[in-house]
């Protein structure tokens, strides 16, 4: 027998649907017009060091209770605000709220002046100076490095390639080492297909559009389903804001400096050199096992950009075997910065690990 509908329930439902339709209309107009854009990267911060396009930000969000300071090394292909997407949905906000002193090394938007930036420039020039700036700012002897995606490769090479690297901990988030397992993301660049120079434009860099196309082709029809879900939830301001922030980030790629792209194609993709456990950097050989500090290898089980199989070998290659730990997370590539499982699971587990491997500060200090 079909359930008997209570007239009061019916009125309630009609009221709710009318209210939602009005909200949908309002938010729909705002969405189409492009007004009411979400605020991204909103955690208060201060630029404490700057060289070229690279900037070091120190976040100011409460009392620092633990040290050493955390330096996030962002990837070279995307914008760093994915790790500080929206208030209430931000890794940076979570870590600072947990009492950590957080810095972000943001690479900015490269142009022709950055076309000859190679791995050596990032690993041997920018990173040592950024780490020195963090130590100067905080008075700390050590840092905790946190690398996201390719930023994790840079952090690893820095920690392994510098005898004096003052690194207490390294957290590698979706950091690829086995490029043979990177699948469709790099398939166009394998031997016999496109050479690095064929993707480099007049500025000497790989244009942001080319990178966006690579990500887009991972799931070309997904946008239809996403837009339908948006339409259903258009009445919900918080959903719309989150959707817009994520959509903005996923289209907001930056050019990839040509010199480092050539190295990535030749050394990482074609020779898969990181899987040998070492690589030549400048005039020396860097052994990944020499990376200082405790290593946390964090990966997302449904990551299509950097699949777990590309990340897992970190456990055999990077740092001291006795100091390696693995963290498997639900979610995809962006679970390190945003999403329901990020707030419930990823952020608490990352913050917990860092605090466990940090010292409580004897004096409470407002940065």
């Amino acid at each position, binding site marked *: 027998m079909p359930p008997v509908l209570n007239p009061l329930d019916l009125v309630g439902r009609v009221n709710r649907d009318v209210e939602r339709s009005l909200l949908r209309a309002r938010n729909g107009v705002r969405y189409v017009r492009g007004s009411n854009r979400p605020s991204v990267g909103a955690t*208060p911060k201060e630029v*404490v*060091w700057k*060289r070229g396009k690279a900037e070091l*930000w120190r976040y100011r969000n409460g009392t620092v209770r633990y040290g050493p300071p955390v330096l996030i090394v962002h990837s070279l292909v995307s914008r760093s605000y994915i790790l500080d997407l929206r208030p209430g949905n931000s890794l940076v906000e979570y870590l600072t709220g947990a009492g950590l002193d957080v810095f972000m090394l943001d690479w900015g938007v490269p142009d022709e002046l950055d076309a000859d930036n190679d791995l050596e420039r990032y690993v041997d020039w920018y990173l040592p100076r950024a780490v020195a700036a963090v130590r100067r700012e905080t008075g700390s002897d050590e840092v905790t490095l946190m690398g996201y995606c390719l930023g994790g490769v840079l952090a690893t090479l820095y920690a392994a390639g510098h005898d004096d690297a003052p690194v207490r901990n390294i957290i590698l988030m979706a950091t690829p080492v086995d490029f043979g397992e990177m699948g469709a993301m790099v*398939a166009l660049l394998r031997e016999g297909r496109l050479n690095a120079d064929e993707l480099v434009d007049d500025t000497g860099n790989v244009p942001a559009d080319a990178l966006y196309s690579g990500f887009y082709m991972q799931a070309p029809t997904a946008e*239809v*389903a996403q837009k339908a879900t948006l339409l259903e939830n258009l009445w919900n301001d918080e959903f719309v804001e989150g959707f817009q922030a994520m959509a903005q980030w996923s289209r907001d790629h930056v050019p990839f400096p040509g010199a480092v792209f050539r190295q990535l194609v030749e050394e990482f993709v074609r020779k898969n050199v990181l899987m040998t456990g070492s690589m030549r950097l400048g005039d020396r050989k860097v052994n990944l096992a020499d990376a200082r500090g405790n290593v946390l290898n964090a990966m997302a089980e449904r990551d299509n950009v950097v699949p777990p199989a590309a990340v897992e070998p970190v456990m055999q290659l990077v740092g001291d075997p006795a100091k390696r730990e693995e963290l498997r997370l639900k979610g995809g590539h962006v679970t390190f910065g945003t999403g329901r499982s990020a707030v419930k699971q990823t952020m608490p587990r990352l913050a917990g690990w860092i605090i466990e491997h940090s010292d409580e500060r004897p004096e409470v200090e407002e940065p």
Partner: protein
Amino acid sequence: MSSNSPLWLKAVHKIERAVGEPIEAAVRTDTYFDVVTKATRATSKAKRTVVATSTRVLHVLNLPADSDVRRMREQLTRMERRLNRLSEDVSELDGSPRDRSRD
């Protein structure tokens, strides 16, 4: 997608997956990557041919072509890069002034 999503939304998701999965499988095949490689090379070759022709015409008319402007820009970029590196070296010798600003 939650279990209490409306039927139309469930249908859209189902259709999207029905269409999307074969497309995603297709764009992961060697054939697709070979086609994209050939298409990219053909586009570049066509562009080079057009640019070479227009350059010849512009040079006959004693006018600068895009390639001349590009070469000039590359030289200026190289110069600016060298200046930047020199200024970095000097500021490091000076004791690096820090650029602070709040957001």
